């Protein structure tokens, strides 16, 4: 077990170093940092002095190690566009994106798991067939179209919900939250649904496949033969074993949620990290792009690591297999 955990941690560190290297190369080789930082009127001598001061003439390995050290210490450099510390810019935007992502994941799980169980238990029902057909259409509709449709129906035609921004937010320490005002919740509904729909279909399909597999297994048949009530059988015996892979997909979906939050944030003008990233691409603001990349990869690797360890802790079979 210790070996397994160690192996996973080494893998995670490898991914992080690789991503840090990409971010470093971006900063170092895409455009010259000195020309970006200085104006046209800066003399060549001054430019060279700045270059020497910033250590841009050092060997690349030294530079990369310094880059990593500064990243670990939370020093992310300055934005080319706003001249502000990137760390602050990203930190300001993290709550918006995380809150949106968490609510979207909740929607995906709270609707996807029951729907998956239902469609597995009643595979021939009319409701099942229509749910399956809807999900096939659901995965084919791009996220931004779902967003536009929701804005059109609930924002423009019915006028029930706001279509852009975060509404009212409350600041708790450095965390700006929209969970504490009615206005904030109202603003959250449409973007969260937009972001959650695709993940919902994935959750549903996976739960369905797993559940159908579990229902065919020997121990369920044996339980049936023992005359245990169907309800108890479905929800106590079968669902429990279905839940194990569901934890894994939460980890996998996290990456999707973060990536598609770029699209959702753009449609709803949601002031999160995704919108910041899009702006930084438009203005070729390399430091912000690089840091966004590192932050996202860090969240992603962290969540996946936790999920893997959880998986291992929950399913005793994995432990014995590893030991033997």
């Amino acid at each position: 077990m210790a070996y397994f955990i160690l192996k996973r941690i080494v893998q995670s560190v490898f991914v992080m170093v690789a991503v840090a290297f990409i971010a470093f190369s971006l900063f170092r080789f895409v455009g010259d940092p000195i020309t970006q930082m200085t104006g046209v009127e800066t003399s060549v001598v001054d430019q060279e002095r700045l270059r020497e001061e910033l250590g841009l003439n050092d060997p690349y390995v030294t530079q990369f190690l310094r880059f990593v050290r500064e990243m670990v210490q939370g020093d992310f450099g300055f934005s080319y566009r706003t001249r502000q510390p990137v760390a602050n810019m990203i930190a300001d935007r993290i709550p918006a994106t995380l809150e949106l992502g968490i609510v979207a994941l909740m929607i995906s799980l709270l609707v996807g798991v029951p729907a998956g169980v239902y469609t597995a238990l009643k595979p021939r029902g009319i409701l099942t067939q229509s749910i399956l057909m809807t999900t096939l259409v659901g995965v084919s509709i791009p996220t931004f179209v779902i967003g536009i449709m929701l804005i059109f129906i609930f924002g423009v035609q019915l006028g029930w919900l706001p279509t852009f921004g975060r509404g009212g937010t409350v600041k708790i320490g450095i965390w700006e939250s929209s969970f504490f005002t009615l206005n904030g919740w109202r603003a959250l509904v449409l973007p969260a649904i937009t972001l959650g729909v695709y993940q919902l279909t994935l959750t549903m399909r996976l739960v369905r496949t797993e559940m159908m597999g579990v229902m065919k297994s020997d121990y369920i048949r044996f339980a049936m033969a023992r005359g245990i009530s169907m309800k108890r059988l479905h929800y106590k015996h079968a669902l429990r074993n279905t839940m194990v892979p569901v934890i894994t997909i939460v980890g996998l979906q996290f990456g999707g949620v973060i990536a598609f939050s770029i699209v959702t944030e753009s449609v709803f003008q949601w002031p999160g990290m995704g919108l910041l990233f899009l702006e930084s691409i438009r203005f070729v603001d390399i430091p912000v792009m690089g840091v966004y990349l590192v932050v996202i990869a860090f969240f992603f690797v962290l969540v996946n690591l936790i999920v893997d360890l959880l998986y291992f802790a929950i399913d005793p079979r994995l432990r014995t297999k590893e030991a033997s």
Partner: protein
Amino acid sequence: MSEFLKKYEGLWMFLNSPSAIVAAMVAIFIIMGAVFASQIALVNPYDLASFSLFDGLLPPFWQEGANVKYLLGTDDQGRDMISSILYGARLSLIISLSALAIAAVLGVGLGLAAGYYGGRFDIIVMRIADVQLALPAILTALLIDGIARGLLPQAIQQDLRVVVLTLAIALSLWVNFARTARASTFIEINKDYVHAAIMMGQRPMRIMFVHILPNILGPLLVIMTVDLASAILLEATLSFLGIGLPADSPSLGTLIRIGMQFLLSGEWWILWIPTVVLVALVVSINILGDFLRDIFNPRLR
């Protein structure tokens, strides 16, 4: 089962699946429209002289105030919607198909070689794939686009948008091909025909591409359809975000972005008609992909 039936089993299943037939018809209809865009289209939406502002904002034919010349109406510039959509679909398909081809060649080549040689080469390819998988496709594509903006001189950037977009999509889709090709190669490599070919002293290149490749085409074809849908979606999304193509050569995604400006006013057709075409195209390709997967995966039958 007789040889004959086996050979045409796929066709038989196809003819018995109404959803697959409808999907194929919709996909072929849109693709034909895109291929013959310059013959069918009333005006050339890239040529400013071929349309006039006086024809702007005309509704589709069933609404009042329509001009029958423009069956599905016009946008604010007076461009015929049908023409814009035909040219837009053409651009979307050109970009997605070329991206897919590049991704397939790159991914299958690397996957085959990784599976065939194994060892250190395999480890390197798979580690790169791992890092790539840690970043979702859309993020990779955006990033490549951003890098291209930083590296290319301002002057040629506009001309290279299509190339950059294609490469960005290709580089974010190759992993699927590589992993599938590698996994299938691992199975094939222990079969007798590969051993025989190795004994006969054939070159690795020949064994990989002439002997193994034809035997692993099935799963790759499924990936191909599924990823074609992803490529179209990715292109549409990037163009919608305003990162993809400039507004004067619109793809379907760009048309939808332009249409967004009319969400609050009454000109619904400018937004919704390109949207319907895009969704119809992707839905039908996905249905065909599901169908192919069922054919190539006998376990599911």
